[in-house]
């Protein structure tokens, strides 16, 4: 490998975020591997889904380890949503080449993603039942 200041003209090489996106998918994947494993084991083995109720959530978020639970759930929300929706974005870029449709679908994706992000954050931080 060497260095040169030579610049070859080609349509490839435009600035973009794909490198960051690629790296982020791997890092967020690794992080989620750990927290999703914990989440699943806890919800399915310790609490069990059938027993999960509104009260159960209230107790957890307001209990002695409330902050820890909220942090964990926030991490899940952020990593899960960004990782997942970035994956959807990749698929759109792969298969939808029409510039207009590509843009429309990705805009839609970003809007839905933002709404979900806000909704999730509201649920965690504003507090159970307080949105009524």
């Amino acid at each position, binding site marked *: *490998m060497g260095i040169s200041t030579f610049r070859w003209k*080609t349509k*490839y090489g435009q600035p973009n975020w794909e*490198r960051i996106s690629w790296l982020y998918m791997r890092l967020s994947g690794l992080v989620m591997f750990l927290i999703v494993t914990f989440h699943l084991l806890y919800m399915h083995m310790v609490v069990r889904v059938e027993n999960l109720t509104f009260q159960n959530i209230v107790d957890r978020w307001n209990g002695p380890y409330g902050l820890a639970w909220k942090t964990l759930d926030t991490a899940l929300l952020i990593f899960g949503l960004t990782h997942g929706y970035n994956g959807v974005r990749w698929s759109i870029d792969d298969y939808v080449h029409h510039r207009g449709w590509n843009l429309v679908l990705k805009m839609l994706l970003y809007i839905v993603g933002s709404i979900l992000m806000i909704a999730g954050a509201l649920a965690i931080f504003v507090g159970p039942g307080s949105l009524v």
Partner: protein
Amino acid sequence: MRVKMRIRRFNPEKDSKPWWGEYEVEVEPTDRVLDALHQVKWYQDGTLTLRRSCAHGICGSDAMVINGRNALACKVLMRDVGKVCVVEPLRGLPLIKDLVVDMEPFFAKYRAVMPWLVNDEIPDHGERLQSPEARERYDDTTKCILCAACTTSCPSFWANEHYIGPAAIVQAHRFIFDDRDRAAVERLRILNDRDGVWRCRTVFNCVQACPREIDVTKAIGEVKLAILEAL
């Protein structure tokens, strides 16, 4: 042994869409698929059109889909294809006629990665020195014959024709890791494109398709890491 050849046919001057031609041929088990195709072309239907030249896996002319998988027709023996041999043109490149596809988009991507050595420091006498270890570093990717078997086996390429494709990355790798070259960063910049290395999803079809047994995905992986490191 008797084998049925099912060949995807298309004549742009006559057909509106491709169709299947079926032919029976008598072959030796050690005959190549290319020999069977020649039997069809030479003694049954002269209109069958394909590219071929050296017939022993070096020139890269006769890459095609054989029984659902990319290969060179001159490197697959009839004993390995069974009683029915299904032959189609490469996927993802514009179809011209029968088994012939337009290679120009493929070579355009090859040309995009600056596939030549950049180094103006010519020594006064003799060769530039290079250690056997440094030479070994890029040995694998010097084997590429530009047959397009890898690029046209890649789902990312089928999905998006702008993807630069494994072959171009392999060719770039050959120079990026050559310690005599001085334009590695420039090549990495080219490959760090929306349609560059990041469209590779490590599917590994390219490794299976490569008739030269190049570890294509490894080369792409090394380029990815080099981009992360250098840019």
